[in-house]
């Protein structure tokens, strides 16, 4: 009985996990504006792709006999085993199988991934499988790409192509609290997932793989696949993971593929994504070969979808396929799932749009309307990186002439000096929203960079802009601390402040300097504040020097009165004849500020990209 409850838990949590697969990677879905079309084609890579299917995690199953599970410590193994049975059962009894699994590609031709990439990976493995062991130094390939671009599937298909056995590390399902309590009650010790992973890697590294059934005669060659690195929380854990993987890269004898999912720029404000990047870099430096998979092109997705449609014998129009493909943003797993959903209940999805009488494919606007209707169901949320958003705001691109379309009803009559040409972008608030911009950092970034974009003559503009910043700062700081509890109110204020700052920049900068290369800098303000706090602490510590320690002194008095004098006296005393009165020691200068939410590397991005947007 207990076991069953357990397994139920396992299924639940693993379901969650699969869901999560889609979430963190939400990339581009579809927007309503005509521009977004070009936008999407631009972000999608140029190469055509082959069909592919999701890389499944714990789906070692009857489909692919080559898959073979290792790396689960004994106690997990049992559970997992029983779970697989249960899931298989329930899968059959409940609904039809997920198409993503059902239509998994079985041959290289079926893969939706770009041929060149597949070829690259294939030849890499070929080299390693054919030659005798020990010849090659690097036995690790790191494959990165967004979720749903076919990383795992490619490896699986290649493995089956070579007849190699795929030995997979699947991250164990996370232990949830009830489970943990249950386990401790029954006396099972908790091992962290990272520990398990490290142990596994160590074993592999030292002993290679000991085939589970040693009776097998013709040993097939083995490919080690590490899908999904364990979560690391904190620097220590991460360093451990890194060193463990580095060891693996340096000394493994097995051809190994490590898959890393990229997250979207905009979502990468947290450390994990950055760390993953760092990890990849260090692995590459250690000699691993790196292959990046691009999002899958619309055409290959469409091809795959129509193949599935043929096999499933459901009729979906070309246009609908097109929409699904576009909505998926290069994530084929998402596309297939959408297709399945669509085929289950076709009425539900497109009804609204079809019933609109004006519907016709000829007009772009209508398609857009349709898309916006659909995107609610199919599309992934479109995100922009903060940098693109900032670039948009700062470059302040506007139409060259007022569109005639403005009806008299729409337009306020404004004085000429207040009127501006229409923006060449969505409403700033929307752009902000897509970039997940928080008011404070956005304001700081704009403040740091905007002066570069104002032409040299336009002093008034500079004032306008900075006065709007001042407004926005007021909004941001009102009730600071007080309203922390009432999040709603705070949110409104925050968005208002961001909006004021952004629109202030857009409105104020009426004479933008001619477009040229600009690097976007990280706000110096952050560093300044940090050093200021540091110095302030110093001063607070020193404030008792005055009054002989019998009383304390205001910070400002110390800073403006005592400090300059003391500095001066010291200089005299040590014979400094430095009349440059300002020798500010800025101790914290060297300290890195990269912990401040948005990081250094962003300042390196820059140039062309910004220019382009």
């Amino acid at each position: 009985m207990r076991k069953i409850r357990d397994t139920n838990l396992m299924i639940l949590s693993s379901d969650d996990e699969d869901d999560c697969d889609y979430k963190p990677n939400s990339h581009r879905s579809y927007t309503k504006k005509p521009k977004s079309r070009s936008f999407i084609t631009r972000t999608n890579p140029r190469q055509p792709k082959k069909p592919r299917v999701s890389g499944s995690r714990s789906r070692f199953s009857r489909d692919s006999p080559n898959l073979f599970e290792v790396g689960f410590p004994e106690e997990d193994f049992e559970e997992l085993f029983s779970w697989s049975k249960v899931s298989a059962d329930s899968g059959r009894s409940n609904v039809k199988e997920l198409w993503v699994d059902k239509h998994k590609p079985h041959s290289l031709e079926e893969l939706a991934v770009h041929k060149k990439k597949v070829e690259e990976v294939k030849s890499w493995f070929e080299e390693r499988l054919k030659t005798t062991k020990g010849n090659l130094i690097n036995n690790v390939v790191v494959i990165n790409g967004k979720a749903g671009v076919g990383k795992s599937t490619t490896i699986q298909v290649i493995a089956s192509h070579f007849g190699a056995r795929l030995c997979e590390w699947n991250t164990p399902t996370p232990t949830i609290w009830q489970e943990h309590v249950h386990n401790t009650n029954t006396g099972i010790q908790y091992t962290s997932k990272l520990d398990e992973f490290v142990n596994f890697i160590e074993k592999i590294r030292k002993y290679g793989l000991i085939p589970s059934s040693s009776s097998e005669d013709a040993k097939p060659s083995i490919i080690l696949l590490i899908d999904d690195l364990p979560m690391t929380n904190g620097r220590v854990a991460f360093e451990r993971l890194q060193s463990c993987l580095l060891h693996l890269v340096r000394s493994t004898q097995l051809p190994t593929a490590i898959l890393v999912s990229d997250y979207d720029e905009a979502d990468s404000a947290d450390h994990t994504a950055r760390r993953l990047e760092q990890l990849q870099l260090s692995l590459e430096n250690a000699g691993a070969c790196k292959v990046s998979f691009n999002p899958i092109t619309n055409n290959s997705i469409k091809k795959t979808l129509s193949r599935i449609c043929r096999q499933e014998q459901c009729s979906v129009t070309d246009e609908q396929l097109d929409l699904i493909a576009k909505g998926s943003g290069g994530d084929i797993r998402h596309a297939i799932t959408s297709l399945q959903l669509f085929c289950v209940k076709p009425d539900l999805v497109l009804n609204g749009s079809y019933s609109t009488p004006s519907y016709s494919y000829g007009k772009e606007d209508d398609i857009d309307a349709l898309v916006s209707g659909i995107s609610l169901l199919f599309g992934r949320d479109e995100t922009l990186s903060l940098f693109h958003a900032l670039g948009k705001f700062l470059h302040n691109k506007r139409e060259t002439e007022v569109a005639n379309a403005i009806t008299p009803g729409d337009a306020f009559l404004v004085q000429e000096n207040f009127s501006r040409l229409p923006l060449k972008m969505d409403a700033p608030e929307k752009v902000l929203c897509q970039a997940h911009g928080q008011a404070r950092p956005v304001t700081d970034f704009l403040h740091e960079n905007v002066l570069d974009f104002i032409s040299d003559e336009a002093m008034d503009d500079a004032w306008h802009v900075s006065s709007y910043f001042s407004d926005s700062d007021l909004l941001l700081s009102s009730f600071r601390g007080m309203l922390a509890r009432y999040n709603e109110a705070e949110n409104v204020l925050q968005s208002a402040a961001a909006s004021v700052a952004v629109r202030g920049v857009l409105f104020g900068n009426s004479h933008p300097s001619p477009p040229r290369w600009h690097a976007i800098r990280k706000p110096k303000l952050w560093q300044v504040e940090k050093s200021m706090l540091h110095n302030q602490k110093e001063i607070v510590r020193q404030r008792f020097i005055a009054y002989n320690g019998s009383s304390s002194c205001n910070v400002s008095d110390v800073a403006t009165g005592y400090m300059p004098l003391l500095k001066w006296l010291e200089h005299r005393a040590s014979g400094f004849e430095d009349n440059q009165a300002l020798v500010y020691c800025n101790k914290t200068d060297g300290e890195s500020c990269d912990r401040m939410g948005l990081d250094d590397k962003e300042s390196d991005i820059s140039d062309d990209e910004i220019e382009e947007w």
Partner: protein
Amino acid sequence: MLWVDKYRPKTLDQVIVHQETAENLKKLVTEQDCPHLLFYGPSGSGKKTLIMALLRQIFGTSAEKVKVENRTWKIDAGSRTIDLELTTLSSTNHVELSPSDAGFQDRYIVQEIIKEMAKNRPIDTKGKKGYKVLVLNEVDKLSREAQHSLRRTMEKYSASCRLILCCNSSSKVTEAIRSRCLNVRINAPKEEQIVKVLEFIGKKEGLQLPPGFAARVADKSNRSLRRAILSFETCRVQQYPFSSNQAIPPMDWEEYVSEICSDIMREQSPKRLFQVRGKLYELLINCIPPEIILKKLLSELLKKLDEELKHEVCHWAAYYEHRMRMGQKAIFHLEAFVAKFMSIYKAFLIATFG
């Protein structure tokens, strides 16, 4: 030891500058009780000196035996507990602290400390329950909430403790608090008074003061006694015997501000604004309070400005000073002021010289 501290009057009898106030205070405390007090006045006018002398008057020399303590208060704020760390100076009879160090959590500090002090009241020699004195610095920097809670605790525990509040500007202290305290305004000392103090110190140190020298130091001091004594000492280190035309070294940050000022006057463009921003950052890093920067900047600018612009520039300085107080990041407002000035000045230049 710096002269500022060395020649600081220890008792109310010794003061040179605010003799009248000192007399009044002395009378006040000889009755063995004193009301809550609010000292206000510009910096360098002698508020803290008077407070220290007053404490000594009340409690005798024991008020001078203080220890510095770094304490953590655990505060139960509804759903969570907050740990607050603050440095206090305390003797057996008084506690001194700057609650504004705690940032926006200052209100908790005010409440907790007063409550705690009220709990253990000292008992004086006659077995009568005495009172403790709490000295709060920089009351004008307290948030509005903190001031409100200060008001309530003041009433509740008035039997067991007396508050001495100290601030630069009473306008930032709420009416409610002001009306509960005896307000003592400490003027900035007159230049003659400063000269007197400087001559007194000179005599004690056995220095030869050339005629007019003390007056010049006083003149440069902006009527801040602290400033005057500090620069007096600097001069002493710089060159002794004094010559009557000896230069009085200015504060480094003030020089820097005037440098910024001439930058602004020389060119008005976004690029220059950006450079100015960098310099303002320098000042802020060194903890020069933004209000003081703005004030100094304005006075430097006014020196070089045409009559007709002065009014407008002052208006904008006041405007942005106000916003700076309301806002969070001073640089935004400082910069906005500089930008506004540049824009006004540029328009003026164009209008005048075409």
